[in-house]
């Protein structure tokens, strides 16, 4: 593959990101990072936290005056850089180029571009941001005044056959609600209305967030906006819209935010052409329903919004999934091209008094502009144990690492202190440097004189300097006491355990096996398949039973997979890399044991059984799943004249407040199937919000074209179902026609949504992982870690995480495989050195530590010692995270956190 490297005109190995060049740059350009609402110099970084923090010259605006080079202290500017083509030897490609936001300017009825106070949602996002154009003030662009009221208009450029794109952009409803909530937090009493067609809060816990927004006073107006007009004097905006009851209404707002959708940029199609990858008619990458991560080109995979509009967690899942598929392809080459860092032998520091080296950082002007760095450095020289002090323009720069290394050797330093920024981002770098000089990484400590001094005391430089001295003194006091620590490593079992043999579980098991790892697959039923056994076709018409057959066969043929059918797990003990699992055969009652390095939970879910609308009392009242089976097995449905479907049955209310995500698409799918088989039949779909997100919207439109009637009802005005002489009658108040609608039907089909499996709770307890309020497993982070549990080594996929579509289960299962491989591919697992340690001679075995430990890392054990049988607390090092909750709860002071011991902390307290 050939990659064109565009010149930055800045040498990345020299640039320290200090920003001096940008201060002197004479040209300014529009700040695209701030959605065009700010200005950036011609030599720039997009934002302060950018990675890499290397300046780049924007050649479109640079006039080549040479000032930046003149002022660069690191001599990093290099105007001679040329575009160059690198040829990369690669085994696979993942395309994750994403989308851009839809250009709203041509949609003239909204006045964007003409009226200053009409902004796009990405602009509003920047306005809300503390690093945005207004530095965290929420202001109207026309006059810099805080708006009294803000309107959001949904589906701008989306869900439209006339203007914009036909598909739903999937993310806009939720980002609008989020922006509304955040804006209200900024501006107390702000009046917010969201004009929408359907609120598509289809994801996990999305509806709860919408309810929270409603509770905080955000108004939701089901409507179609016809136009926006600006009042020339006040610059307020008057929105004319057609409300739910068909009336035209107007309302005036201080600002209008257009929730514009996502679309693929022209650069995506160019890239697709170069790679020979097919696109669909919307410009998204073409993928199969059962192969959502595979492009038309073998070896090239896709993830994220380039595959179709989606939210962040879906993007993350797909990306991990694509990572699994691409590495699966290259499994024989694992580890062939990576290099391991090598370290010199460790310097023995025992028995030698502290020889501390302190490095004080100017951080360009970041610290140096506000803290008197030379004064701090001079002061530090006087501290006990300090034998060397140096200052650096940037202690984190590459050449400074070399300096630190040299000085450690030259001055026989055995403790290193860096006074600079935050350890959160930079501690690992300095620890690496220490290690590369042979010094144990835990003989290092950091004082944060940037975030805690220069940044927050800019107006009082003297006090900032004094505080910096204090912080360094405290850190040096701690450093005197530091001892080398070992990071424990332990073996792991390179075998996976997958709980649940549905679509997600089967996909995960196959994935692990193809990555070269033995896998145990445990299924509670007598056959593999889970929910897949009830599904016959997809929206696009794919044959699901064929998929099921093929998966079952692949599993059977895969020698690395051992399947335990009709089984349950009775016990899982251990920790990452070393789980011990007991599996019980439900027929024979026989138990077997297995050892596993990781666990993938894929216990699935099931269709809820409705209790309302005569279900169970009248055989003509059935669920969508039952309908699908009848439709698939031709004979079971007598020619119907009229079919009514009711959505959200027992869903999105009281006990089950969540949306099950798939039911709207399922209803559309089955309705279309009915129309295909019985073109004469009337089909009515009674819904609260139609949530055919993404390109599923196309089928919703198709259904309407085919004459399927979609009728909205409110949660508090549910349909009334009665039976008279064997005929089912549905009555609904129609808000548009303002009269009761009465339909007699042959079949009443209910969409009751999905509920979690009962055994979720058992597994949650067994694995010490949490469930959410609805009984689904709770991930480590809703956005960024949608597959991981907070506990390392345990992953989830499929419906046990939350209800989802087939392709989404497949993606998430592959993602779980990818996450698992980050562990299974290791030879040994390394624990942190800063963990709890118990002095068993002090320990009273009271068990308080065991009670407070969230990770189950400390337990009171009984052991035979020289003095007889003793009870004391023992730490499982692999599980301990070093949080210190046990140490501060111990009544005997028997527990210390290594590297953050009592004496270390007290030394700091004594020294401020």
């Amino acid at each position: 593959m050939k990659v064109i490297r565009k010149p930055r005109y800045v040498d990345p190995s020299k640039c320290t990101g200090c920003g001096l060049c940008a201060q002197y740059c004479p040209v300014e350009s529009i700040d695209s990072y701030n959605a065009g609402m700010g200005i950036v110099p011609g030599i720039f970084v997009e934002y302060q936290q950018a990675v890499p923090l290397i300046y780049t010259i924007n050649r479109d605006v640079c006039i080549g005056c040479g000032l930046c080079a003149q002022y660069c202290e690191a001599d990093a500017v290099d105007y001679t850089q040329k575009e160059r083509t690198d040829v990369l030897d690669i085994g696979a490609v993942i395309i994750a180029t994403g989308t851009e936001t839809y250009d709203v300017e041509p949609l003239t009825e909204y006045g964007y571009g003409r009226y200053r106070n009409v902004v796009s949602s990405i602009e509003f996002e920047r306005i809300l941001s503390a690093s945005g154009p207004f530095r965290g003030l929420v202001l109207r662009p026309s006059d810099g005044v805080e708006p009294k009221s803000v309107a959001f208009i949904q589906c701008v450029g989306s869900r439209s056959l006339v203007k914009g794109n036909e598909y739903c952009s999937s993310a806009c409803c939720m980002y609008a609600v989020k922006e509304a909530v955040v804006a209200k937090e900024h501006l107390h009493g702000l009046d917010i209305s969201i004009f929408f067609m359907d609120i598509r809060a289809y994801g996990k816990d999305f509806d709860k967030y919408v309810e929270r927004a409603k509770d905080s006073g955000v108004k939701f107006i089901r409507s179609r906006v016809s136009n926006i007009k600006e009042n020339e004097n006040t610059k307020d905006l008057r929105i004319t819209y057609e409300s739910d009851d068909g009336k035209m209404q107007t309302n005036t707002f201080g600002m209008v935010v257009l929730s514009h959708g996502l679309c693929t940029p022209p650069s995506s199609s160019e890239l697709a052409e170069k790679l020979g990858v097919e696109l669909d008619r919307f410009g998204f990458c073409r993928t199969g329903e059962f192969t959502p991560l595979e492009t038309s080109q073998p070896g090239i995979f896709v993830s994220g919004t380039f595959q179709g509009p989606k939210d962040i967690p879906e993007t993350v899942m797909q990306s991990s999934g694509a990572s699994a598929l691409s590495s699966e392809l290259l499994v024989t080459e694992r580890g062939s091209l990576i290099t391991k860092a090598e370290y010199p032998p460790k310097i023995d520091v025992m028995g030698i008094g502290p020889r501390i080296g302190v490095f004080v950082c100017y951080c360009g002007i970041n610290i140096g502009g506000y803290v008197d760095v030379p004064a701090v450095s001079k002061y530090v020289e006087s501290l006990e144990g300090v034998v060397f002090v140096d200052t650096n323009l940037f202690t984190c720069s590459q050449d400074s690492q070399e300096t630190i290394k040299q000085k450690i050797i030259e001055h026989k330093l055995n403790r290193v202190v860096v006074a600079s920024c935050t350890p959160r981002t930079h501690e690992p770098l300095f620890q690496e440097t220490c290690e590369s000089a042979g010094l144990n990484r835990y003989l290092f400590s950091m004082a944060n004189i940037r975030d805690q001094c220069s940044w927050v005391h800019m107006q009082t430089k003297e006090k900032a300097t004094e505080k910096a001295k204090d912080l360094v003194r405290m850190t040096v006091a701690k450093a005197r006491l530091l001892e080398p620590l070992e990071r424990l490593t332990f073996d792991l079992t390179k075998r996976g355990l997958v709980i649940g043999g549905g679509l997600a579980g089967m996909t995960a098991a196959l994935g692990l096996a193809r990555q070269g790892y033995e896998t145990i697959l445990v299924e509670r039923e007598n056959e593999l398949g889970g929910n897949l056994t009830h599904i016959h076709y997809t929206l696009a018409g794919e044959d699901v039973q064929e998929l099921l057959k093929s998966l079952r066969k692949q599993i059977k043929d895969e020698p690395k997979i051992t399947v335990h059918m009709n089984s349950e797990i009775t016990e899982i003990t251990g920790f990452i890399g070393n789980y011990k699992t007991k599996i019980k055969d439900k027929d024979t009652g026989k138990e077997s044991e297995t050892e596993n390095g990781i666990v993938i939970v894929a216990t699935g879910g099931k269709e809820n059984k409705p209790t309302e609308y005569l279900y169970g009392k009248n055989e003509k009242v059935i669920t969508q799943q039952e309908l699908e089976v009848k439709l698939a097995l031709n004979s079971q449905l007598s020619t119907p004249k009229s079919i009514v479907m009711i959505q959200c049955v027992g869903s999105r209310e009281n006990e089950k407040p969540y949306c099950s995500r798939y039911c709207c698409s399922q209803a559309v799918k089955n309705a279309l199937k009915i129309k295909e088989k019985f073109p004469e039949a009337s089909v009515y779909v009674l819904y609260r919000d139609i949530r055919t997100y993404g390109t599923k919207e196309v089928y919703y439109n198709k259904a309407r074209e085919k004459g399927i009637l979609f009728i909205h009802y409110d949660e508090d005005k549910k349909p009334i179902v009665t039976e008279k002489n064997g005929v089912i009658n549905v009555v609904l108040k129609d808000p548009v026609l303002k009269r009761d609608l009465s339909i007699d039907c042959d079949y009443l089909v209910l969409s009751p949504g999905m509920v979690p499996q009962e055994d979720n709770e058992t597994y949650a307890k067994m694995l010490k992982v949490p469930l959410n309020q609805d009984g689904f497993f709770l991930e480590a982070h809703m956005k960024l870690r949608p597959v991981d549990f907070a506990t390392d080594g345990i992953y989830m996929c499929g419906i046990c995480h939350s209800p989802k579509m087939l392709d989404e289960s497949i993606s998430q299962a592959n993602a779980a495989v990818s996450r698992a491989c980050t562990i299974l591919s290791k030879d040994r697992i390394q624990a942190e050195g800063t963990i709890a340690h118990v002095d068993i001679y002090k320990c009273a075995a009271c068990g308080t530590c065991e009670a407070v430990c969230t990770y189950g890392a400390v337990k009171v054990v009984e052991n035979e010692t020289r003095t007889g049988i003793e009870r004391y607390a023992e730490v499982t090092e692999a599980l301990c995270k070093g949080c210190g909750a046990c140490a501060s709860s111990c009544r005997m002071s028997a527990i210390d956190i290594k590297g953050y011991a009592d004496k270390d902390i007290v030394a700091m307290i004594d020294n401020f």
Partner: protein
Amino acid sequence: MQHPTNTRTIRVLCTGQVDPTYVLKALKNGADGVLVIGCRLGECHYINGNYQAREKIDMTKIMLEKAGISSKRVEMRFISSAEGNKYIEAVKEFTDTVKSVGPSPVRSKEKCESIKRILDALIAAASEFRLRAIVAKKKKMIEEGNVYNEKIPQEEIEKVIDNAVNTEFVRKLIVSCLKEKPQSCMDIADKIEVPSALVLSHLSYLRRKNIIDVDRVKERVPYYKII
């Protein structure tokens, strides 16, 4: 060698020394016009001082136009020391031009305050490093090429200078307004007669540069102050 009595001469060794702020200060002190006279192009005793001066005066003229002051009040001529006649001609011509433009607004009672504030802003803008730097490099970039060894078209570089002058001028006006007392975006916009949306964007820039800060937000209106 008779010439108009209403001129006052200030000697410099080379026009290269003529700082745009000198010209602007003279105008601020009530001069109706400023004529800068240097050696003939190509005959500079200091190699290229007069070329440098020409760029600076060009920029000064742009600045005056931006500020709504006629740029005819500033002129540069290139006359050798042996061309006395030409000198007198130039002075006469310039005096006539300035006369046709009218007396300096600094001397009119009602405009005095506002025009002085504008000229102060111009002086501050002309002192900005980036403006000086780009003007200093203009000629070389057009004739010899820039750091990428590309010759920059004159229009392009003039556009950059024009933009830079404009932004610096408005920013300095805003700063001078805020020096009086904390004010809102609308207050400033009214006072300096610049659209409020543009003022807002400059206020944001100045906040980012730690030059100004929000003083208070009163009834939804933020007031800004100088740090």
